[in-house]
């Protein structure tokens, strides 16, 4: 498989409905601070993965995260991670399909065929969900991971082709970058300290122009639509809270497993478990501002109210990570570590470093990673 295909597939795996739709909705709520999902979050994390974690994957011949966990720790850690990850995947695919069905419904794509077939219009939503699930099922069944990768590449180009004219027209209609700045409240573009959503009218400015051009690009005869945005901002929220539950403790387990040879299977398992439980308890004890106790938190008692959903998610993740980290260390110290010869290729200190100095600088991970980090830093400075 050519490198550009694999690279674009990775790129577009991060361009799903949750990101494309959720990010737009989240930006309407939080402003450009949303970019810090990438500028503070994903980009440094990816560089870390590329430089430190890929050699492990090659060295240990692990093919997935649960696979690595079973090689490094034991079956119960792998099982727990596989289970939580499966839950997260089901949830997040559910959100993706829900968001997509909402879009199809509000763009009225299936209205005419449904009318011709004398089917009720209320079915459009459900048919969209089932249809998308069947299409994905069919190509995964036939081609497996390869078909998923090639499909991602195709989608990457489709997403770019769909959004490029949208951005162009949106920016043009608002009067370029300076016009956009003038039309938005300052905290949307400048300092990222404010987490308070501003008035609905301001939100609408940036979004309606985007939505208007989105609809015209499809040249469909849409009725006006933007109320759709509110349910859509939930997509990213749900996704993030699941990440806080599942991925934050996993990250602590991974770090300890990779860099500390004393880390044991018992420590990893109970650390992971207590991290997930800590996330649940934190979520149950806190509430984002403006929502009532229930799904979004506070189902045990409301001890603390955060200014926004994202602040709550972030603290959930911090709690989950810390608890997992501490519990894993305590249990590790109490249990017997595996002998060094069993950990070869699984722990950083015991893995032969692959030094690749032969190629040009842009083919080696470390220089490329540093360049990417530098560019990210510049973006952070500009929009601090």
């Amino acid at each position, binding site marked *: *498989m*050519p490198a550009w*295909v694999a690279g674009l597939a990775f790129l577009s795996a991060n361009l799903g409905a949750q990101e494309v739709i959720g990010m737009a909705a989240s930006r309407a709520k939080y402003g450009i601070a949303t970019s810090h999902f990438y500028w503070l979050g994903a980009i440094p994390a990816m560089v870390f993965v590329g430089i430190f974690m890929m050699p492990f994957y090659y060295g240990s011949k692990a093919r997935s995260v649960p696979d690595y966990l079973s090689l490094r720790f034991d079956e119960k850690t792998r099982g727990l991670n596989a289970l939580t990850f499966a839950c997260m995947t089901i949830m997040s695919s559910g959100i993706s399909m829900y968001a997509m069905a909402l879009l199809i419904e509000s763009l009225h794509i299936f209205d005419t065929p449904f009318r011709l077939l004398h089917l009720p219009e209320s079915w459009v939503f459900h048919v969209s969900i089932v249809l998308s699930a069947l299409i994905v099922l069919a190509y995964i069944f036939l081609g497996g991971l390869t078909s998923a990768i*090639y499909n991602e*590449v*195709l989608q990457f*180009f*489709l997403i770019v*082709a769909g959004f*490029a*004219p949208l951005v162009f*027209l949106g920016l*043009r*209609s608002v009067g370029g970058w300076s016009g956009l700045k003038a039309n938005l409240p300052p905290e949307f573009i400048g300092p990222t300290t404010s987490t308070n959503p501003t008035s609905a009218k301001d939100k609408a400015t940036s979004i309606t122009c985007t939505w*208007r*051009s989105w*609809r*015209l*690009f499809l*040249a469909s005869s849409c009725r006006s639509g933007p109320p759709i945005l509110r349910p859509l901002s939930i997509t990213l929220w749900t996704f993030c809270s699941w990440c806080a539950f599942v991925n934050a403790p996993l990250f602590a387990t991974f770090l300890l497993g990779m860099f500390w040879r004393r880390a044991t299977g018992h420590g990893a398992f109970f650390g992971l478990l207590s991290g997930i439980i800590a996330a649940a308890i934190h979520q149950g004890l806190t509430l984002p501002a403006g929502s009532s106790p229930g799904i979004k938190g506070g189902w045990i008692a409301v001890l603390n109210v955060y200014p926004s959903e994202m602040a709550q998610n972030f603290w959930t993740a911090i709690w989950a990570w810390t608890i997992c980290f501490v519990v894993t260390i305590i249990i590790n110290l109490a249990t017997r570590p595996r002998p060094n010869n069993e950990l070869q290729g699984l722990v950083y200190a015991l893995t032969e470093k692959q030094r690749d100095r032969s190629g040009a600088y842009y083919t080696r991970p470390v220089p490329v990673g540093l360049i990417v980090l530098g560019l990210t830093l510049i973006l952070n400075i500009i929009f601090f």
Partner: protein
Amino acid sequence: MGFDIRISIGFLFTTLGALLILFGLLTIQSPIYWHSLGMNINLGWGIILLIFGLLMVFFAKRSERRTAAQQTSRAKGVN
């Protein structure tokens, strides 16, 4: 590697571009374009997508020819 994704991308975008151009041509002077600041965005973007699609097909075909040429020269070298 027998499968080249560029062929699929190329044909998909050539088709999409052609469709958009056709639609753009049929709707010249149509009031739907008040949304897009009076620009016939279907026509313009259709042309860009068509060019992109054709370029993809071109590059795929070129690399196909090159691999074929390499194989024949290697076969000759063996003989």
